[in-house]
């Protein structure tokens, strides 16, 4: 058995920021575990630029953003164990790992930070009738093959889902000589950022079909064509609108979900149904005492800057717990999403003497040109601010500063459309 004060699971943006922040807040016995040979996580394959505008006030590519954090991490001589996969986390903060160097090993920690990132949804989770030929990939896997392994997965490409990864891949594959025939989005609006629709689709005249989906996959053993159809307001395919598109590759860009098996199976951690991430308090501590969560494993982010910030919060609070012990909790206030809000974090506020500010992260459920973000305690409004251009694809934040948290019973976060 190995002993460390703090164990961080995952060496992406969240894990790196958490490690640096825990170190800067006084913890010295830190071990970061990463299953792949490299630190940096998903950023390594995101070679496009657009990272770090908030953090560094300049536009970086994913690998450049990662390199800045890796440099900070290494400058502090924090211990990292690569090629080390966490198999299970136990409630008593023992971490079972399988490592290329140590084989099977167990680490006893005083605090653990979950930073394992997310997975892409696949064709199995969305059900399309037809064959299961070669040539169907998740957009992120195609991205990894092109940007890290150095090869293009196909030449005539169709994309299902208008998430950013799919849009970015439409441009990238077009530039590398593939023909991208179009993108279908089930919803009446795109899930990707506007700027990506412009610079990844419009720049190359790639059609975006809204309220449309892939209804059949054709070809055996290799993909030869797909059938697409328009959908009605209940998102059911409309008969007579079918169109056959010949292609050798279908990319699925249909969403991401946090990977929490390590947390739920061994430690019986509680998940929040809306995010599939951990149920957390304002310190990002989960239902398992001493276990914190940050980044895409907590909720799927669109901006890496916010992932880093979350990692820092988790790192700081884990350091606080390790070095100063637990504060007396005077009251627990629940937080719940309400009208037009898809989810809100944190799920609970543990009010102590020093609780004077809480930052809420949330996503709206539908696009709204103008809205009013409202935080209320029961029926009583405690804060409201106006906001423009609210989109489901953009995570929003609102901070509540008050010394009155103890007077609240149940907070709701909602958006009124104006």
């Amino acid at each position: 058995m190995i002993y460390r004060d703090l164990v961080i699971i995952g060496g992406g943006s969240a894990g790196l920021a958490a490690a640096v922040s825990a170190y800067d807040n006084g913890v010295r016995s830190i071990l970061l575990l990463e299953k792949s040979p490299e630190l940096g996580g998903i950023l390594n394959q995101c070679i496009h630029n657009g990272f770090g505008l908030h953090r560094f006030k300049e536009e970086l590519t994913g690998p450049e953003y990662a390199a800045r954090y890796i440099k900070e991490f290494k400058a502090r001589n924090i211990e990292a164990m690569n090629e080390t996969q966490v198999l299970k986390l136990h409630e008593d903060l023992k971490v079972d790992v399988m490592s290329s160097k140590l084989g099977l090993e167990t680490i006893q920690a005083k605090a653990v930070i979950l930073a394992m990132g997310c997975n892409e949804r696949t064709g199995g989770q969305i059900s399309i009738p037809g064959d299961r030929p070669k040539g169907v990939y998740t957009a992120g896997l195609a991205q990894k093959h092109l940007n890290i392994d150095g090869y293009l997965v196909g030449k005539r490409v169709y994309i299902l889902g208008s998430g950013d990864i799919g849009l970015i891949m439409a441009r990238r594959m077009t530039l590398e000589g593939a023909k991208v025939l179009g993108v279908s989005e089930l919803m009446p609006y795109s899930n990707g950022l506007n700027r990506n629709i412009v610079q990844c689709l419009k720049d190359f005249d790639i059609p975006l079909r809204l309220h449309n989906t892939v209804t059949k996959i054709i070809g055996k053993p290799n993909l030869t064509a797909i059938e697409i159809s328009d959908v009605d307001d209940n998102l059911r395919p409309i008969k007579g609108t079918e169109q056959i598109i010949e292609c050798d590759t279908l990319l699925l860009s249909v969403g991401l979900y946090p990977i929490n098996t390590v947390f739920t199976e061994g430690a019986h951690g509680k998940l929040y149904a809306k995010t599939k991430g951990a149920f957390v308090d304002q310190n990002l501590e989960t239902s398992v005492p001493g276990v914190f969560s940050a980044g895409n494993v907590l909720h799927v982010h669109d901006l890496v800057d916010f992932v880093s910030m979350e990692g820092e919060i988790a790192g700081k609070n884990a350091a606080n717990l390790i070095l100063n012990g637990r504060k007396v909790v005077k009251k627990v206030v629940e937080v719940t999403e309400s009208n037009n809000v898809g989810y809100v974090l944190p799920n609970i506020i543990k009010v102590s003497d020093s609780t004077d500010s809480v930052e809420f992260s949330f996503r709206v459920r539908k696009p709204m040109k103008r809205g009013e973000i409202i935080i209320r305690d029961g029926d009583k409004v405690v804060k409201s601010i106006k906001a423009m251009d609210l989109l489901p694809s953009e995570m929003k934040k609102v901070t509540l500063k008050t010394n009155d948290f103890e007077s609240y019973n149940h907070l709701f976060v909602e958006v009124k459309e104006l």
Partner: protein
Amino acid sequence: MDREFTCIVCPKGCHITAHDDGTITGYTCLRGLNYVKQELVDPRRTLTSTVRVNGGQLRVCPVKSQDTLPKDRVFDVVAEIDKTSINAPVHIGDVVIENVLGLGVNIIACKNIDVK
């Protein structure tokens, strides 16, 4: 006819209109105004791609254009990058192609890659 733009400078993606009378409205910050002014006369884009690496721990290295390139020359630049290979070790900021196609812009490395 008025021309509509979506600003691509930051993730906010403001809708900006260039009116017939020469006025530009809808931007939130000056970078957006400058983007549309530029877009009207000479649209430019930043390019990111990968270049082959010899003898490195990875087979390809991510690269970017150090500044924006004329939009209609982007494909030509990709072809240049595809013809190129570099030797490990690679450091962030290394110039991979100097003054690519005489456009006055360097292609630079975005990742540190050690020797295998």
